[in-house]
Each structure stands twice: as C-alpha cells, then as structure tokens.
C-alpha cells in the first residue's frame, strides 16, 4: 500500500467519507449501462464489484483502507485472466471460458482493494489497431458523442446521422481507453505489443502508459508476442498512472522475464525547472501520412520545452522504417506458436467435428479464430519453416537489435526523453476505417509506436489538444529502460502545460447529479 502521498481527489473523497465505495461503484455501473452503445465492456461483473465495494467500505469505516486504490473502480482488458469471470479475448475460441486464476496484475490490484467492474472489449486476441475486429463488435470512441466533436462535424447528407459518423477508439485496447475516457472507471488495464495502449489512449484523450518490458508481470496476460507484450495502464492523468504503476510493478516469480530488482513506487515530482532536460526529436517520426495538425502540435510541444529552457535537439533513429516489417515477421511467428494451444481439447471452443483428432483440431481452429488471427498464424508458420527461418526470423531478430541500438545510441548521447507523435491523425470514422483490412491498418497505425516495443522501452501518450474535428490528439514521450520516474515527471510537466480539455460527454443518464464525482478527472 502506498503511504501518504499527495491529496488525491476521489481517494480523498473516499477517505473523508464524502462518497462511499459502494456509491461510487453503483454510479460507475449505472454509467456503464447508459453508455452501453459504446460497446466498451464485454463483461460487467456487477455482483462481484459490489461485493468488493462493500468490503472496501468496511475498511474505510474502520479507517484502514489498503491504499490509494482501495474502493477505486477499475476495468481490465479482456485478455487478462480474471478468476471466476469470463475471459474471451473477444474471440469465439474463448467465449464462455471462465478463468480459474487471476493474472498477477489483476491480483495485485484486487489486493490493493480496487473494485473490478468488468472486462473491456478489444480486437480479437489483441490483433488490430482499431478495436473493431472482435466477435463482440467494434468499440465506439466516446468522443464521437462529445459536444466538441458534434460541434465540429458537418453532416454530409440528411440520411447521415451521428450513428454512422462515430469514430473508432484505436486499438487494440479500445475498450479500456473508452471506459476510462467515458468516466465509467478511474483506471483500466490494457496491453501494449505494438502500441495497443498508447494508440487508443491518443484517440480517446487519455493517458496511456507502456512500461519497460520486464517491469510488470505478464503472468495471466494471454500473449500476443511474448517478447514484446506488456500490461498497459490507462488513466485520466499522469499521477493516476503512477499510482497504478506503483501497485503493479516488481518481480513476479511466476514470470521469468520480470527483473529481479526491487521496484520502489514513487509519487511523480512536480517539475518546475526543465533547463537540465534534453528532449530528442527523432526525425524519422515525421512519417509519411502524418497529418499537418499533428505535425503542428508536435512542433508546438517542442517549442514549449525550448521556451521553458530545455534543450531540444533533432536526433536520428535510422532503422525506424524497418520496424513494421520486422514486427510483422516476429509477431506472426510468435502468434503461430502461441495460438497452437487452442485445439479445443482442454478448454475453449471445441468443434462438433469428430471424425478424427486432426479434423477436430482443424474445424475448431477455423470456427474459433477470425480471419486476422488465422492470417497471422499462416504467415508465422511460413516464416518459421526450416527453409525460411534464417532469412526471415533470424534476419528480423538482427534488425530488431539494430532498432534497439538506435535508441541506446541516442540516449547514450545525452538525450533524456524523446518526444514524438503517437498517431498519424485523429480518430477516423468507423466506416472509413473498415475500408482497409486489418493488416494494412495495423501497418499504418503502428508506425509511431512499434519500435518502442522492439526495444522494450517505456513510453507514454499524453493527451495534448483537440483536432479540427474536435477529437483528441496525443503526443508520445519515450523514456529510457526502467526510468519510468523520469518519464512520468516530464509527462506530468507537459500535461500541466497543455491543459487538455475534459470531454463534454452527452449521454442520456438517469441521475444527473450522480455524474458529479465522475467529472473529477482523476482518483489521485
């Protein structure tokens, strides 16, 4: 449990008894119902959430909350195992699959008294950049229903209404981002393999933190790419992200890829003097297709640091342009391997086909997986064939090392933090997004976030401003390995400078006054 710390808004309200955990929980559940059209949640665990809230309440009454997170409603992406609660990965393969255990990160949150509201929607098995390709349907960006967006949107024809104009959340942790953005929870877990936490964070106007690989346990996170996956944290402000990070980070004996060193939870310092800071602007992140809006925002941000006295220099990460292709090889290879366990035998969907074991396997996998998953399995198996392994997998691993070394060199030359865009543009309308296939979209959208996963570095999306269409734009800070404190410090300073506007969500709700507390952006 975190001791003391700065006064946190909702936590303070809970501690001071101004609001009770059960009340908070009820309000969130009610709001989830009112915002059902967003399709952010796959499973709402109403009963268990209320029980957890009751337990929390008892603790507060005794004056013994477990910490800052006690009683705080949270949501978890549906690729994390949650004991007794369905975990589907938005796939037919795991529909109805009730996890028998909690992922370590889930357990740690529950141990801190957090209230688990439910499981959020995603692209099937986290493969995608729109949160549009899961079996439960696409997630809608809450900003589609914001006054800011509606004011700016020009209906193209009479027949077109806001129903068809809604924009995507980005992905693959779109459900989690939408849940946080629409105030139905105070923090959510996502996962990040190629940008899957940062991308939807940018599109939904929330903070999305990708921690250093090896800092947070992956035990219980259903893997996409074991060597790149990390649990991601989505919150409404940087301070909240630090609180969640503090409760999650640290060695887990169940995950052999976590570092042994002890992690010291920290409060994000309030930086006042940035003159000792060196910000790097990687020129390769001026990627083809980068919208002029984002370019301008990026430039403005760089100026902000410069004017405040920081050293802002252009740097080069020359192998950036190979990261997508490299990722494609390594990701699909791992996918082919990780998905091999889904055969219908021990758990999950099993086809009725029973002529032979092999035909049962084939039918199960054809029925259980969508095209995206099957496509990646086929590609991955191709790259892993004996005759191809050297030319594809080994080559990609070598390129991966070059990409990682780019960062090492730049950070080694005295740069503290890198500043880049997170996405190429603001969120596109769903109807436009689906015109291109998943693979094309992923390749386009991952370009600014993917290399970070290659190198295992920490990175964070900070909501920066609104686009001309009234939608969120975010910028990304990339830090050095295990230097989350420095990364969050800079991110928090920046957050204070840009004062990103609160979403003015227009949602039919039964109890107007109940919305009051949700309006507080943060719990911390």
């Amino acid at each position, binding site marked *: 449990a975190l001791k003391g710390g700065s006064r946190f808004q909702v936590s303070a309200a809970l501690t001071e008894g101004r609001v009770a955990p059960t009340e908070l929980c009820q309000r969130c559940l009610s709001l989830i119902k009112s915002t059902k059209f967003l399709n952010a949640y796959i499973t709402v665990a109403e009963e268990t959430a209320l029980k957890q809230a009751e337990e929390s309440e008892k603790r507060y009454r005794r004056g013994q909350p477990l910490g800052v997170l006690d009683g705080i409603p949270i949501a978890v992406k549906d690729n994390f195992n949650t004991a007794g609660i369905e975990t589907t990965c938005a796939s037919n393969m795991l529909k109805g699959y009730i996890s*028998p255990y909690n992922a370590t990160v889930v357990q740690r949150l529950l141990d801190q008294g957090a209230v688990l509201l439910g499981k959020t929607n995603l692209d099937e098995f986290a493969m995608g950049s729109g949160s549009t390709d899961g079996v439960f349907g696409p997630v809608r960006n809450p900003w589609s229903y914001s006054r800011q967006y509606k004011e700016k949107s020009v209906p193209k024809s009479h027949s077109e209404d806001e129903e068809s104009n809604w924009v995507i959340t980005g992905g693959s942790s779109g459900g989690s981002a939408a849940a946080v953005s629409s105030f139905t929870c105070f923090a959510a877990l996502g996962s990040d393999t190629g940008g899957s936490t940062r991308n939807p964070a940018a599109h939904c106007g929330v903070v999305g933190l990708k921690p250093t690989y090896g800092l947070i346990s992956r035990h219980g996170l259903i893997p996409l*790419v074991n060597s790149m996956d990390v649990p991601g944290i989505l919150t409404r402000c940087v301070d909240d992200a630090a609180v969640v990070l503090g409760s999650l980070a640290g060695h887990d004996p169940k995950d052999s890829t976590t570092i042994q060193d002890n992690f010291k939870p920290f409060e994000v310092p309030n930086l006042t003097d940035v003159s000792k800071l060196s910000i790097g602007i990687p020129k390769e992140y001026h990627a083809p297709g980068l919208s002029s809006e984002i370019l301008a925002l990026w430039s403005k941000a760089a100026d902000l640091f410069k004017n405040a006295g920081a050293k802002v220099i252009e740097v080069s990460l020359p192998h950036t342009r190979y990261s997508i292709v490299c990722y494609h090889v390594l990701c699909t290879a791992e996918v082919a*391997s990780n998905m091999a366990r889904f055969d219908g035998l*021990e758990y999950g969907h099993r086809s009725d086909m029973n002529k032979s074991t092999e035909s049962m396997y084939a039918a199960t996998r054809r029925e259980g997986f969508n095209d995206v998953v099957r496509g990646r399995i086929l590609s991955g198996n191709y790259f892993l064939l004996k005759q191809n392994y050297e030319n594809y997998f080994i080559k990609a691993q070598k390129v991966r090392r070059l990409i990682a070394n780019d960062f090492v060199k730049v950070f080694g030359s005295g740069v503290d933090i890198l500043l880049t865009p997170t996405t190429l543009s603001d969120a596109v309308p769903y109807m436009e997004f689906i015109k291109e296939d998943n693979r094309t979209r992923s390749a386009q959208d991952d370009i600014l976030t993917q290399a970070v996963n290659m190198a295992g570095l920490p990175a964070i999306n900070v909501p920066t401003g609104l686009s001309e269409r009234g939608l969120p734009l975010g910028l990304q800070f990339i830090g050095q390995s295990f230097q989350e404190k420095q990364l969050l410090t800079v991110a928090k300073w920046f957050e204070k400078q840009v004062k990103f506007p609160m979403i003015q969500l227009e949602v039919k709700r039964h109890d107007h006054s109940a919305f009051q507390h949700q309006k507080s952006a943060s719990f911390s």
Partner: protein
Amino acid sequence: LAPWVPVVGLEIHAQISSNSKLFSGSQVQFAAPPNSLVSFFDASLPGTLPVLNRRCVEAAVMTGLALKCSINKKSLFDRKHYFYADLPAGYQITQQRVPIAVNGSLSYSLCIDNKMSQMVTKTVRIKQIQLEQDSGKSLHDDARSQTLVDLNRAGVGLMEVVMEPDMCCGEEAAAAVRELQLILQTLGSSQAVMAEGQLRVDANVSVHRPGEHYGVRTEVKNINSVRFLAKAVDYEIQRQIEELESGGTILNETRAFDSKLGCTVPMRDKEGKQDYRFMPEPNLPPLILYDAKSLPANTNHQQVVNIDWIHERLPDLPSVKRAKLVERYGILPEHSFTLLNEDGLAEFFENVVKQTQMKPKKVIGWILNDLLSYLKQHSLTVKESPVSSFLLADLLNLLEKKEISSTAAKQVLVELWKGEGKTPLEIVKEKKLELIQDQKELEQICQAVIDGQENEVIMMVLG
C-alpha cells in the same frame, strides 16, 4: 563381397527424478489417477508461463559431469512445434540450439563370445544432453472411436542423451544403455527404470559397405527393455542387409519394435517429414550456470547453480566402484560387473565379507553362483532374498572353519532358502552334516566299512 558395417546411434530420454515438473510446480508421480497431477501450465491454459525447476538443472549438470561432458555455462530453450493430443501447448519446450551439456563419452564393457572371462571395454561418444518436457499419454479406444488423454506426465522433466553412432550391434547398444542406467541410478538424477517409462530408448540404425558413406538410417521406437533393445537393433540391421542385398532401398522412416513378433514395423503415424518450426522460447531467459571462478560476489545462493559445487559432490560412478571392488577384494573385473549389475548385490557381498573370515575371492563364488542364480530362478531381487548377508556369512564361517564340507554347505543353503528362520548351525545339527575331524573316529568308520564289505576287500587285495 565385403561384409556390411552396421552403425547404431541412440537417443535416450531419461525422466528426471524430481518432486515437481520441469516448468511447473505440479507433482511427479508414477501411476497416479489420470489428470490428477496437472497444473494450469501443464494443461496449457492461456496466460500461463514456464518457471524453470532448479533440481532438474542440477540433475542435468550431474549427468553431464558423470558423462564427461562440457557443461555449457549458457544454454537456451526452444519451442518445437507439432500437433498431438498429448501435447497441450502444441509445442514442446526443449533445447535445440544450445543444450546444457555437450561432447562427452561413456565407457561400457562387453563379454566376448558370451564368456564372462573375456571382457572388452568400448566407448561411445555423447553428443549432447538437453533438458526438455515430457508429453502426456494418449490411449486410443478404437472400440468407441475416441482417444483418452492423461496429462499427468505432461511437463515432467526429461534429459535427452544423444549417443553418437559409434555402436555396431544390439549387444553394444544394450551394454551402453545398461551402463547409462547404472550411472543415472547412482547419481539419483533418474531412476531409469525402463518398465516404468523412466528411460526410453530410440535406436538409429543403418548399414553400409566399408569405405562407403553411411547408409540411410531408420529410427526404431517402442523398445521397452534393454533385452528388447538388443533384439530390435539386431533385427533391424538384419532387415536392412537383406533388403539391400535383394536390391531394395532403405527408407528414412520411423519403425516400431513389435516385441511379440520380434521385428520392426513401419509406424503409421509419422507420415512425411515434420517441420518442427523451432523458435526460441521467449518466456525463458538463457540458462546461466556458474563455476567457482565465474560466480559473482554477493549472489543469492538460491538463485544460482554452481557447476563446481555439484562436481565436488558427485558420488562414485559405477566404473570407479567396480575398480575399487577389484582392488579391495581381489575379485575379477567381470565379477565386479555382475555385482553392480544387480541392485544391492555389491552391498550384500561387502556385508558378507565383513562378517566372515572366508577370503573375498572365495565368497564371490557363493554370491555369484549360488545366491544370484537362486534369486534369478525365483525372480527375486537382492532385497527380497530370504537368506540375509548375516546368515550367509554364518554359513561360510562354518565352511571356513572346516566344520562342514562344501557339499554340505550347499545342502544347508538349500534349507536356508526356505526361510524357516533356522540358523546354519541348527540345520547342520539337524541334518547331521558335521565334518568329522577326529582321526580315530574316521579310522573306525573306515574299518567298519571295510569289515562290512569283506568279500570286496579280498577281491581288491588279490587284484
């Protein structure tokens, strides 16, 4: 026409003797109720991760050192992919790129022409030892067209020991495996009982004409005992020779040994060549082992495996034990082999020697000829022997003190086998088997015999 040169290599899988499995905490136990020893990881539940078992690493290091291998201070884990009902994850975690131990050797002995008196020592190179997961078991119920899967064994640690094709026949293969069994049992790294599936042997067999390239090899599986190994290998060599001599070719295939028919048959399952699509196991960092020199200061003892520490604590290997027996007791080398070949026999022998004045060189005859043959006849182990070392020593003492003849001793032994709790002395008295030491008494007996046979004596004297 020059004779064929048979070439035999072996791939041996030894189950590691440990409390829990290689990458998960579930128990290792033979013959438990089906699916009662299966952790989430063993069942390949999504989101579970492997955690390396320290004891299994130590077992592999011990075995590597005993087989004179170089222990790789850095070894890696890989995934080997194939679909099968008893492989829940769709891949096996093994060590394909860099195994834990390489380049060792194993010495074993054979009797020439089945004569125990002529033993020859041979060596087989050990290519490598790798750590890997065992699979579960699948039972095909053809009557109900279903396959039953038991995952108790899935994930148990295995050491795969690869022996280079330095052997030439079934006898050599059998002797090499027998020696490996003894080594593993001495180390305790595996109980190596073939009948319980703790030691599985696959033989790679080919033949070629001298001076030419090695021939196409077949892999022979489903061998359940050391005896069957010799038979399977010899059969396969013969089959290949006959095939080639009649103008046929050998297919690079996998064959199963049918112990009832005493032959090898092609295995239907393995059709076409499998591409295992090896990939590094991303959830396990490289396995780093230390020795006294490389051990960093202030390391947590629990977190590291120290090769030198293990080396210092290796027990005497069979070859050393045999040499010591020969030296200490003056027995023949072939005797020492038999002593070590039988579980508990060497200990029995030494206990008898301790308790008797009879020279070990004489005791050994009683152990190997009388005791052992009796045990074999009745399919008993040394532990189950109704005659304890104490009793046998007691008996041998009577013989040594010349209180009984050796013929009488054998009669007593026959009685002792009955296990009725009588001491040798009691049996001797009961059956009046005492040797008569008194000269006068002997003369009297002889005289009585002569007196009783007067005619025969006269005839003899007259010639």
